[in-house]
Each structure stands twice: as structure tokens, then as C-alpha cells.
């Protein structure tokens, strides 16, 4: 299970990556992250929305309210062009970080 600080750092690029796959709403974004991480990433799910709103203010994503089949209104978010650029930037940063840590810690032993 990731600790809080690690989760907080990873949340932004994670959410951008999920939205890069297509328009989505809060609960499904959480579900995608949980499934992809094997439930290793956990946080107060309501905290996702302030992040989405911040990215909206920064013009990285845009939102639109839609009515679902069950009549419930949901706010869908989709990535904007600036969001795509930010995702590329985040990928670069995480690649640098991963490379650095791999060099310092050494590669994991291969079991095969």
C-alpha cells in the first residue's frame, strides 16, 4: 500500500493518464486507478474532486454535466490539449525519477 505522500504525488499524473484514455467521471476514475494498481492506491475518494477542479482551473481538463441512464447527474471530465502536454511532462519527470532510483537502488533481481 502506498503511503500518503507517495499517493499525493502520484495522483495528478495518474488521473491525467486515466483521462487520456477517454472522458470519465469521478467514481469510474477511482475504479480505474484501484483496478490498475491492484488496490495498492487508496485515499479519501472525495479528495479526487478538488484535484480535478484545480486541473480545470489550470485548463488541463474540462467538465460537462450529463444525465446517466438511471437519471442521476454526473460530471464528466475530459483531457484538453494542455492536459495532454502536461501528461507528457509528468511522464518525463517520473521517468527521470524512476531511472535515478533504479540506479541508486540497483535493478530488481530477475527470478527467471
Amino acid at each position, binding site marked *: 500500500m502506498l503511503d500518503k505522500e507517495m499517493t499525493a504525488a502520484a495522483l495528478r499524473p495518474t488521473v491525467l493518464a486515466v483521462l487520456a484514455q477517454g472522458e470519465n*467521471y*469521478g*467514481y469510474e476514475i477511482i475504479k480505474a486507478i484501484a483496478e490498475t494498481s491492484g488496490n495498492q492506491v487508496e485515499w*479519501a*475518494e*472525495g*479528495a479526487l*474532486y*478538488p*484535484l480535478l*477542479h*484545480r486541473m480545470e*482551473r489550470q485548463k488541463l481538463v474540462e467538465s460537462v454535466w450529463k444525465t446517466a441512464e438511471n437519471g*442521476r*447527474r*454526473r*460530471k464528466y471530465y475530459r483531457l484538453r490539449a494542455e492536459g495532454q502536454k502536461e501528461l507528457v511532462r509528468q511522464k518525463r519527470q517520473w521517468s527521470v525519477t524512476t531511472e535515478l532510483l533504479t540506479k541508486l537502488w540497483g535493478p530488481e533481481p530477475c527470478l527467471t
Partner: protein
Amino acid sequence: MFDLNRALQNWMAPFRVSHIYSSDDLMELESHLLDRMEVALKDGASEEDAFWMALEKVGDEPTLRRQYQLGWGELSWVKRFWRLLTNETVGFTSPGRRIGYAVARAVSLLVGLVAPVYLFALLVFLAAGFKLIEFGRPVYEQGMLFTVLWGLQGPFSWLPIRNWTGKISDWMRLGFAVASIFVALVFLLVHPDFHIGSGGLIGVLSISTAFSIGPVLWLLQTVSRGGYRVDYDSLLVRVSDRASQ
């Protein structure tokens, strides 16, 4: 028997008392909670269990407050004041109603800021009419009576803005204290010979400023921190009572 609507209202109640959550925010959180519940219900959980399981995942107000407070802090002060004015947690869907509501709140705030001056002036003239104070004598020589008049006007003047927050009493106390020190300094050090009728514009401005300090300080901190509209506990009790009727 578990009442989902009441449980939702109780969960939402602390969100509604703070300006840092807009009506959109609350709709989004509620929708998320219900989506979570749907999954648990499909897995065979009871409605009550599904609610509590969803609540644990989504988080309650104290858990989410910090994150939303950061978002509030990133808004411009103009945007924050607009959200306070339109009281976005009420969630008007009609732009006309929202604007009308904002105008009413702005007027009530203005009345609350200006009324103390006029009420104090009215009390001063009434006191002069009954020969309790003299226009020709310096104010500081009649300080005790002015203090009494000051205290009398306070609760009545700020009634119009009371609906902005139940916490304003703290700011009234602070405002009175700061204003009293300010007025005392002006009258004793800057204009020791000040008496009603001689102060002119400076006198009126001094008094207006002094009376406005409390509400202005409250307004500044509310815009700054997205302060709380009414006392949370009493609101929760009212919501619970209404839901059980």
C-alpha cells in the same frame, strides 16, 4: 429503520455550512457516494451497510475539508466574494433567482454596515433632546454615556447581516473592542476637543470606520477562509428534526 434521505442530509449538513463547497461540489460528492452505494447493493449489502461503506470510502467533511480549502484558497478574492454573495450551496438553478438572492444579500450586508452609524446618530440626537448629552462639550468628557449609546445600537444594527453567519457575535465583540480603542485614540489624542457638530467630515468618517470594523473584519476572514455560515451543531439538529417530520 434506516432512512437513506436523512442519512444523506446528515452527511451533507456540515458541507452546506461552509462556503468552500459550491452546489456543484455537493452534487458531485453525493453522486459519487450513490455510485459507491450501488456497487455495494449489487454485492448484496443492505442499504444501511452500503451507505456506511460508501461513506468510509468517499470521506466525511472533516476529512475532505483541507483539500477543498486549498481549492478555495486558489480562487481570486472577487470569485470568493461572489460565491459568498450568491451562497452557492443553496444551488439555485435559475440565474435570475441567483442574481436576486445575491442582490438581497448584498443589500443586507450594506444595511448592516451602514445602519450602526445612523442608529448611533439617532440615539445621540435623542439623548441630546433629553439633555443627557451636550453638543458643545468634548466627547471624551461624556464618554460613559456615549459608550452606553454605542452598546445599545450594536445588537439592533447588525441584525440584517446576522444571517450571513452565526459566528458574527465573536466578530462583534472584537469589532467593538477594536472600534472602541480606535475611537478613543481619535477623540483623546487626535481631536481631544471633538464634540458633536465640530468634527465635521473627520468625525463622521471616524465613527463610520469604527462601527464598520467588526463586520469588515468578519467579511475579510470569511472571504479569506470560506468561513462557516451558521453553527454546525444547531444546523445538524434542525436538519435531523426536519427529516424526521
